[in-house]
Every structure is written in C-alpha cells, then in structure tokens.
C-alpha cells in the first residue's frame, strides 16, 4: 500500500527510540502540552469526534466510554490494559518495546481527560523486556516532571504504576483486570454496576487498551479531522495489524482499515506471501476469539464491520494467524479448544464445563478416535457457550464459541473425512497434555 506514513510505529527502528530525549526530539509530548491547556471535557470531545474505537478487541468508542463517568465523582482510576494474551496478538508488545513514551503520553492525556489520579498499567508478566523498557521510561518521565505532581506546571498530579500480571488471559477482561489489581483471582464481575460507576476499589474506573491510548496522542496533536480522514466510516484511524504463521514476513504493521486479509498475507508491505508458496487453508484474522476463515474468504476487509458478514464475532485484535494447506485442521481445533479450557476462569457453568468438554472432544478427534456425533456436540456446545447473548458473565465464552462453531461449520467436510476414515493415524500429541 503505497505512501502510507506510519503514525503509531513511526519511532520503531529509530536508535534510542525508547528514551525521552529521542522521543522529544521526534515531536513527543507536544500533544500532552496541548491537552493540558484544554479542559478535560474538550479533550474528551476531541476523542469522541475522532470516533476512536477501542483497539483491544471490543471496539467500543473510547470517548463515549470516558463520558460514562459520573459527574459528581471524587476519585477516578485509569487502567491501561497491557495484558495482551489473545493468540496471536503482539501489537501492544511492539508498541511498548519500541516506543514506551508514546503510551505514557497517551495515558497521561487520557488520565487528564478522565481526571484520574492514578493510572495502573496492567502488564502480563511474560512481557519481561517491555516491562523493563516501560518502567525505565516511566522513571524518566517522573524525573522530567511529566508524571507525579504538577505535570508540566499545570497543577495536575498523576501517579503511574505498572502492575504485573501472573499468567491469566481472563485478566485482559476489564473487570477481571480490576479484580487482579485488587489482589484477587481474576474472576470478572457481574455487570451492572459497570466499571465507570464502580470499578477499581469500587471507584469510577476507565480501562483502555495500549493501542487505543497511543492513538489519543495523535488525535490531540493532529486533530480529530485528521483521524477521520484515515480509513472508512465506522473504522477510522490508523490500525496495527499482526500477521504470523508460515508467511515470509511475520510482523506487526500499520495501515488504514481498508486492507483485506489477502493483502495482509500477500501484500508487499505486509506478510509477503506464504513460505514455499504453500496454499492458505485457513486464517484466524481477529485473534482466535473471532472465528476462522477458509482460504476462499480472503477478500474480507479488516475493519469493524466486514467480519460479521463472514460469520465472525468482529475485528477483534486484527491479528491474523495463517494455516497452510499442510496443516491438519484438527490440530488447529485442538489447540484453540485447549487454550480456552486452560484460560476459562471457571465462574460460569457453561464456560467452565463447555470449554473443557470441547477440548476433550477435540483431543479425541485429533487422536483419530472421533465419533460421528462429536461434531454435532461441538456445534451445540459452542451454541450453549455463548452464541445466545447473556448466558455467561463475560465475553470469554463468546470468544470460545465462535472459533469452534465457525471451524466445525466451515471445515466440516475435512473433519468428517477424518472421522469416517477413523484412520487410526495417531496425531503427534502435544506432550504437555
């Protein structure tokens, strides 16, 4: 895609990009200075006008979320969701490893808009390098008067702390994240009340994704109109896309939400095609939670609306893993069901038992001992997990349901073939289970 000038990734590859002096020399913290001269309401209106939709997977408009905070509140918290556990997403990691100050600046601006007194960055513990890089950047920011008391002489105080997770996907769910910061098991809360009313320590709280907050910097610097000039209606702004699997150039790239899955896999600015020119059997384009596409569905546009036409839950994290024609689809099914069985928090009956049962069935199918009724049970269990809204407390069950249902539906022929043959060829079992 010619002539696209990276915005979010503009500092990646620049020597010293993780340090304050280099970030400042390349224009950093100008947006913050501008935001602090505006009122919190004005900043929120600008973000609302940009129609910035959350980049964490749900796509909820950030400005609208900030507007839910009660007017008479006294204490507000801002939580940054750096838990990034959705396979195969790694865009937040890239942002934090290469441009930590962009996130810090975006967080301070968002905290100013929401009048938060503390910003907690909830980072998964497996991000070791990002943690060290970001914490040192935060230390730099404190030393330079960009954090702490009286930021840039504005009178606004903000503390920013990194709170490291401990290995739980469910802590990427906003109330699971809040519970984890409070020192408990990451069981999502029943809603209502919503975090904007009663969140962290029962105070009004906003939870935003890393990429969303990085966008806030640029919206403030260049304006909402610039933001809405990028991408189609309903999917404005620059977006990070991840592509991985057996492609020639796996990585995190930036562009407007006009590209298709085919572009992402084959485009020169993107994955640059399949290794050894193997054919594409399947793609999971939104993180595994959104569902699966066949090799004939690569025209899907990577925006917030098109995935629904292909039976997917949504755009998700816009991270695509490609499965080539040499990969047994049963491996994919087993891997996905195992993930959700491990990560289900266990609070709701459907999710707890449904994900575990799905995994047992998928494991058995992959071992060559599938039964004809297994596929129907898998499809039905996916329905009971979360196809019907309201069945569970959080969206993990929806995220488990969609890949199972779409995989069984779209690859039914191949799966039935294995079951019918019952060829007894033992799949290479993952040795850990």
């Amino acid at each position, binding site marked *: 895609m010619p002539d696209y000038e990276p915005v979010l990734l503009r500092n990646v590859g620049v020597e010293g990009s993780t340090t304050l002096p280099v970030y400042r020399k390349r224009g950093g913290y100008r947006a913050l200075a501008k935001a602090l001269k505006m009122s919190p309401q004005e900043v929120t209106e600008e973000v609302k006008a940009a129609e910035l939709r959350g980049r964490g997977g749900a796509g909820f408009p950030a400005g609208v979320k900030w507007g839910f905070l009660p007017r008479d509140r006294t204490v507000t918290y801002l939580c940054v969701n750096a838990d990034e556990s959705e396979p195969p997403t790694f865009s937040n990691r890239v942002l934090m490893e290469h441009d930590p100050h962009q996130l810090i600046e975006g967080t301070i601006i968002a905290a100013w808009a929401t009048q938060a007194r503390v910003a907690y960055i909830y980072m998964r513990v497996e991000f070791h390098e990002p943690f060290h890089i970001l914490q040192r950047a935060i230390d730099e920011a404190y030393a330079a008067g960009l954090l702490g008391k009286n930021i840039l002489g504005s009178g606004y105080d903000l503390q920013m702390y990194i709170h490291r997770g401990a290995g739980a996907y469910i802590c990427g769910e906003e109330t699971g994240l809040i519970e984890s910061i409070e020192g408990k098991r990451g069981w999502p809360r029943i809603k209502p009340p919503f975090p904007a009313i009663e969140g962290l320590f029962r105070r009004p709280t906003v939870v935003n994704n890393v990429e969303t907050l990085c966008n806030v910097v640029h919206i403030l610097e260049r304006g909402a109109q610039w933001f809405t000039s990028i991408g189609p209606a309903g999917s404005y702004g620059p977006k990070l896309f991840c592509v991985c699997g057996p492609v020639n150039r796996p990585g995190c790239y930036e562009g407007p939400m006009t590209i298709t899955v085919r572009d992402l896999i084959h485009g020169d600015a993107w994955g640059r095609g399949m290794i050894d020119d193997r054919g594409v059997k399947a793609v999971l384009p939104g993180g595994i939670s959104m569902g699966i596409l066949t090799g004939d569905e690569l025209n899907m546009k990577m925006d917030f609306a098109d995935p629904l036409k292909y039976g997917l839950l949504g755009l998700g994290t816009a991270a695509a893993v490609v499965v080539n024609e040499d990969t047994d689809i049963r491996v994919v099914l087993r891997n996905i069901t195992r993930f959700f069985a491990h990560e289900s928090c*266990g609070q709701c*009956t459907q999710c707890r038992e449904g994900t575990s049962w799905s995994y047992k069935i998928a494991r058995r199918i992959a071992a060559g001992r599938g039964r004809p009724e297994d596929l129907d049970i898998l499809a039905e269990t996916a329905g*009971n997990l979360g196809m019907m809204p309201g069945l569970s407390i959080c969206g993990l069950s929806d995220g488990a349901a969609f890949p199972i249902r779409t995989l069984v539906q779209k690859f039914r022929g191949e799966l039935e073939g294995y079951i019918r043959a019952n060829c007894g060829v033992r799949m290479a079992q993952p040795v850990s289970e």
Partner: protein
Amino acid sequence: MPRIEIDGVQVECRGGITVLQAALDAGWSVPHYCYHPGLSITAGCRLCLMEMQLPHPKTGTMDWSPKLVPSCQTMVRDGLVARFASEKVRGNQRRTLEFFLLNHPLDCPVCDQAGECLLQDYSLEFGEPVSRMHDAKHKTPKKDIGPRTLLYTDRCVLCTRCVRFTREVSGTNELCITNRGSREEIDVFPGRPLDNLLQGNVVDICPVGALLDKDFLFKQRVWRLMRAKSICPGCSTGCAVWIDSNEDIVYRLKPRYNPGVNDWWICDDGRFGWKYVHDPKRIVRPLLRRGGAVETPAWDSIPEIVNVRLRAIVDAQGAGRVAAVLSPMMTCEEAWLLIRFIRGLAPEATLVSGPAPLEGEMHTFPVGAIGANVKFTVRREKCPNRRGVDTLVSHAGGPALSFDAFCEQAAAGAFSAAWIVGGYPKTWVTKELAEKIAKIGLLIVQDMFPNALTDAATLVLPVCAFAEREGTFMNYAGRVQPFDRAIAPPDGARRDGQYLYELAGFAGLYNPERVRGMMAEEMPLLGKVEPAPAMAEHQH
C-alpha cells in the same frame, strides 16, 4: 410494593428484592444454586436465567430482549415483565444442567444428600437420563477439611455458597477456591481447617453432597426422617430449628428460617449439642424415698402423693414454708402450670427463678463486626426461657426470691417443702448447693440427670428433653416462639406438661394451646406468639 409480571401473572412483591426471590416467594419453582438471600450475589451458576422485556434499541417499545438475564441479579421494579416459561429459558436450564452433570460422579447410592439434593431434583424435572460425554470425567480428591466437616470435591458444583459464607457470615475466611477453570476446587489452607462456631451451616447451604457433616455421615437416609419444628434450648437467642428424627431417635438438627432471630443459621453448639437427649443416664421414672427405701411409684399415684405431703406441710407449718424453684429450661406453659398448682395449694409459697447458667463469652458473627453488621449472635445465657419464667414469676406476685437468696434462706432452715425444677443438660448442682438445700424436709426435684439433689430428694420426677416437649420459649428479646414435639419421651417417662397439667387440676391430655389461651387471659404478652414464617417452597 412493586408490581411485576411473571409468565403473564401479576405479582405484588416486596421492594428491594431480586426477581428470583419474588418469583420464589410467589410460588414459582426456579432452579438455582448460587443464589442465597443471606449471601452476596455472584450469578455464576446460570440456572436462574430468565427472559425480560426491555425497550427496543431502535423503536423504544417494550419487547422481549434476545439476551437472557440472571433473575438473581435483577432487582424488581414496578412494571417489570419477565418470563420463565419459555423454550429459551427451559433450554438453558436443560443445557446448563447437562454441564453440571458432565463430571459429576454417580454417587447417589452412597451420597448423604440423596433425597434432599437439588441436582437430583432438577435432573428429575428437566435432566437427561444419559450422559453424552465419551471422555474421562475430571476427578478431584475428597478432603477432610475440618474436625466436623468433609468435602467431597468431586461432587461440588462450584456454586461458591460455602466460600461466601465463611467470608460474609462467619467472617472466618477458612474456605477459598483454588486453581482455575474446570480444575477448580474448594479448599482450605492446610493446617487452618474449617473450624468456627458457625461452620455447620456450610453443609446446609451446599446444594449437593459435597460438604458433609461427619456426625451425620451414613447415619440415616433423609426420606426416612420426620421433621418437627422446634426451638434450640442452647442459649437465649432462641434459634428456630428442624428436628429430624426417625422412630423416636433424633438424627440431626437443621436451622429453620427465622428472620430477625437466627435468619438461616444456627451455631454448632446448638446443632450438635442435643446428644444428651439419648443419654442412657437420664432419669425416666419417678423415685420416692420412704422410710429408708427407694420406690418407683406408678405415675397415676403421683398427684395423690404430692398433694398429700404438701398439704400436710401447709396445714402444719403454714404456706410460707413452701417454695418452688422454676428452671429457665421450662416452657412458659409448664412454668405457668406449676405456679398455678403451688400457689393454689399454698398461696404464700415463695417463687424463685432458677439459675440461668452463664458460660464463656458472647460470640458475634461475622468476627469483628459491630452494631447493624452483626448477623448472628451466640449468647452467654445457656437456657432458652429465663425471660419467660421471670415474666411469669413477677406477674404472679406474692413472695419471690432470687435463687441465691433462696439458697441462703434454705440453708438457714426457712423452708420445709420445696419443688425444684432443674432440667439442665450440663451439671448444675455443686456439693455446696446440695448441702444448703438438702436441709429442706420435703424435697420434690424434677431433673434430667442424677445429681446430689436428686440423691437427697424425697420425690424425683423426670424432666423431658426439649425434643420431647412442646410449648413456647421467650427469647432474650422477649419474642415468644412456639415449638412442637419431635419424639416420644424415653420408656417409662411422662412429659412434664402432662403431669403438671394434671397436678394443676386439669383433666385429659395436656394441650399447650389451651394452656396458652388461659395464660394469655392473665398476661396478653405471653399470648403474642410469633412462629417463624415458612420459607418459600422451592427455595433452598
């Protein structure tokens, strides 16, 4: 009082409750596990989901929302429209039940909960007879989690009621959830077992047979048990209990819903402190000491024996030489009958309120809570009816003494005849006490266990246990609570109510309501009986 509509029926309900509670109160059978009115709401079991009408996002008209909503987390408001009788709701119940049964062991033949198990009941209503899972069940271990309780984790449905109980009601925090997902288990920190005065309640609230009472384990099948409504005599709180018995043997006590007194709970002292009921050392027959010999007179001869001897004392020495000590273990009716008999015979007889044993400290729960946050109290006064007896004694007027004063005066020889009621499950007669009272010539002692007083008494009559009696107790707050009898007294014994009724001059079978009616004519306060309301039929 908000008005809501459930399944097309208008229901008027209390404000501030959930739709689930309103439906249960109005008689609906809505399956649920994790909801309990005395605990916080988690909405995790997903059985109680209902359909609700909400404004359509585009048109604004009220329509059935495609989203199922847990009825346990939706508060009632005027005009709410919900339904449980729909294919969506029933479908969810069926499928959720299938999920519960996936890894559940087929333990019914050996499980204590059989007969009162919600998993069994719901399976009968809407379950499948065959499991569709062809894979191995996930097995979790059985645990000994406390001196009185077992946890068979493989039966657990993870409703988390027990964990919330130890966090919110007892405040002792022993129980927790460990692991994640389908591998979750309820557990305690090793070396810090489930051991607090309210721990038995977790067995009651467990909807399946995961938490088990060691005392009741394998003892009796619940469908053979008969239930009677009773009041625990352990302390002056006056918790309402169910006595579960079979063939006149008590097997267990369970709490009975009693809002404002004990709500849904009882303490372990009351729950397990009834074993004395079946103690073989109990006094069951009247004993008469006559001229150096000990006889066992027939029951029908007792009224004559008592009347003759007492009248002799009254005629010879005057009514003032007679005293009656009324124990706080007696019911109001029994005490009233005794007072009527004694004062009828000797109008100047001295009435004494018997000793109310004070033991240990007052325990409030949750631990550390004060004031309105206290949910349960175990009181120091270990008897059920001191206030009732005091009320009756003071109403009767005339000569009255405290128990200590009575003992001093008895030691000084002030009395020639005394009727003393004991009936305490624990030892209450010391050597010094017996020496003071033994000076009384004609000693009629009603008690449960032999002691120095019964050894010195002229006539010994048995006191029956609370499980064998009926009547009312007045608790610490002045609430008059009725209770029924559960079992027959031991062979040879006759209920106190019966022989006191006869002594007081009435014929026929002892009828506590009739006695209460007569009592209420004199003292309306004692006629204001407050039985505990029944819990909704399908609530647990």
